[in-house]
């Protein structure tokens, strides 16, 4: 850093000493650079517009096929785009698969993540915390294929040991792996939210004779609620959009079921099946991939939007 600081001084000096240029050319350069920056800034907007254009046009294209009706898409629970004479495009078969995996995952990730975060933030000795926190951040970056392999070679055999009726590919195995995948994210973000609660509040709680449990339950958690809820929502959005684990471990048969021992297919799993299979680039199956992507985009976008609103609206501003 000392090097950077030195060069900082030198650079400031250079600005000061540099021969005075023509003011007009300086202005021209400034506005040129500003225009470049604005162009880069607009790029992210262009990405969103491109996503919307692609998804909307292809979805319209999809509904243009004779076999597809809006009523069938939103009203049926049979998703059968590939096989048989009678094709059916009931999105709920895929949505229910996604919901089941997400529910299982969140049942694991949210409680474990939140309590671990409370432990790290409020109970753990500072040495334990400074050791575990970076590890959690690294674990949050583990590629998702790793969890897929774990689900297939660890969860599934264990589950089948407990109950033989678990299929080789089942919703439970993938759901557990997605939950483990989300765990470091929930934990790290919730811990950040807890740490953001000002120290004075904690001290006030202790000063009033509260135990750590009282302080956590009555002061710190309520104060950090908006951050925790947005961490939860982020984890849910991540679980909904998780692709590789469910493609590897949950199977390929879209159906509405309440039995986590069964094979299912999620929206993301279907997209992977389409992209990796031998499907022509112009057929109805290929278009259905875009319609599913559109639904997925809408779902995650609304979760993220709710998260933004929660963070803004319900933030307890201290100090």
């Amino acid at each position, binding site marked *: 850093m000392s090097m*950077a*600081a030195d*060069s*900082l001084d030198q650079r*400031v000096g250079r*600005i*000061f000493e540099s021969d005075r240029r023509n003011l007009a050319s300086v202005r021209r*350069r400034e506005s040129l650079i*500003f225009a470049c*920056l604005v162009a*880069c*800034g607009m*790029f*992210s*907007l262009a990405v969103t517009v*491109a*996503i919307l254009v*692609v998804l909307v046009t292809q979805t319209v294209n999809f509904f243009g096929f004779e076999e597809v009706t809006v009523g069938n898409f939103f009203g049926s629970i049979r998703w059968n785009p590939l096989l048989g004479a009678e094709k059916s495009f009931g999105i709920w078969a895929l949505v229910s698969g996604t919901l089941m995996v997400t529910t299982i995952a969140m049942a694991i990730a949210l409680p*474990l993540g939140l*309590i671990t975060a409370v432990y790290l933030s409020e*109970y*753990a000795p500072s040495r334990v915390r400074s050791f*575990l926190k970076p590890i959690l951040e*690294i674990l949050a*970056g583990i*590629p998702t*294929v*790793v*969890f897929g*392999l*774990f689900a*297939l*070679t*660890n969860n599934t055999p264990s589950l089948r040991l407990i109950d033989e009726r678990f299929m080789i590919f089942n919703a439970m195995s993938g759901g557990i792996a997605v939950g483990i995948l989300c*765990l*470091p994210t929930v*934990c790290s973000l919730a811990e950040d939210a807890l740490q953001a609660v000002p120290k004075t509040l904690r001290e006030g709680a202790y000063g009033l*004779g509260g*135990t*750590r*449990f*009282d302080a956590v339950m009555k002061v710190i958690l309520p104060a950090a609620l908006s951050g925790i809820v947005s961490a939860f929502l982020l984890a849910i*959005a991540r679980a*909904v*959009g998780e*692709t*590789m684990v469910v493609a*590897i471990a949950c199977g390929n048969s879209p159906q509405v079921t309440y039995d986590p021992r069964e094979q299912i297919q999620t929206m993301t799993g279907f*997209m*992977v099946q389409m*992209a*990796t299979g031998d499907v022509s*680039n112009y057929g109805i199956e290929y278009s259905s991939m*875009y319609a599913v992507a559109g639904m*997925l*985009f809408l779902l*995650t976008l609304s*979760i*993220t939007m709710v998260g*933004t609103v929660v963070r803004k609206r319900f933030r307890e501003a201290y100090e």
Partner: protein
Amino acid sequence: MSVAPESTPSPESTPTPASVPASESVNRSDPGHPAGLLRQPGNRRPTGPRRSKDLYFHIVCIFVAAISIAVLSWLLFSVFRKGASWLTWDYVTSPPEPDPMTAGIFPAIWGTIAVCTLCALVTLPIGIATAILLEEFKPKTKFIAWLYGLIQLNISNLAGVPSVVYGILGLTAFVSMFGLFESDTPGQPAFELGGTSFQQYTSLSGRSIYFPVDSSSDGPPTLVDGAEAFQYSIGPDGRPIIDLGRLVPIQLNVLDPGDPYPSDQELKSRTVRHDDYGGRVHDRPWYYFRLPLGSGVLAGALTLMLVILPVVIIATQESLRGVPSTLRDGARGLGATPWQVVWNVTLPAATPGIMTGSILAMSRAIGETAPILIIAGVVYIRHVPQHFMDDFTVLPMQIYNWIDRPQEEFRNIAAAGILVLLAILLTFNAIAVLIRQLTQRPLS
């Protein structure tokens, strides 16, 4: 720490008469009771419902934290146990053979390096520029302020879009480019630059003959006697040099029906049958370019750019916010223009943070599988990518490819691939942490 049941308050904790009944009654329903606040000398560890509740909760916390850590450690351990014995030098340096014993990840490693380097070169300038715009050039008009708000909201929403949706976007926008560049032959580029294509025939003596064609999407050419074709040049050791860039011209001879079968060895080596259909080969240097991009390295890099752009922007914004405003004010006071402030003061001060954020974003790009899978599909690649449009595979794709097979051995080599992937990611993380540690010095 001693665990005292609620019903039997220890005598130590009740030194004053006032708190004897209180140890039972001080609880949530009676927070105002003064006895709860009393700390008498010698009362080292008071008990009571609130205390024991705290203790139980503490134990639950430790227990749950231990479970979380144990599960994640078990995950890493089980992968390690599966893959460690398969991880050999041969594994790292050989292509993915159909036999798991000899299969390796060499093309996948080079694919990852190529795609991610290209991705970094494209993403970092755009991402950092966007962050600078939002943080350092404050809006002057209402419209621009509204635009900034829109961009900011948009970035936080883009960060939540599943990567598989970016894969779909990449498939449409980069691989097929919205179908804008249609060619006559499906699957072939409509426009290409820098590459040479040949129709490859086998001569009567078994040597390959290369007949140049105009574009890779043209049909097979018509063969005429005396046309110029090419063959591999013969090296000093008498063997042909297998390199399409170093062909030597020959005069083509076509064996039409009724022609006498040539007996001269030299003539045989440059004679093809008139009905030889041949096959298409391409000589494509590194700068070969085509539209639409197809599922090549460049399309992969651009798709990954979509995924990590929001990450880079958010990380850069955070480190720019961390630069104390006194530095900017100082530079401005010396008469620096806004861009001079950014270039000479803010950016150098924020560089460590930007580097850390960028490295972490790149490690995300290295591990992404879904978007690459969507744009490229399951492919079998044995070679290192040669040009920007070349087919490629990346490490996580190769791993997925192996996991998806039913044989146990392939899962083992997939685990070995994961170990390599994790080693790369750990190195990246370590570099990021190192930068953070070395540069942690207050600037104000």
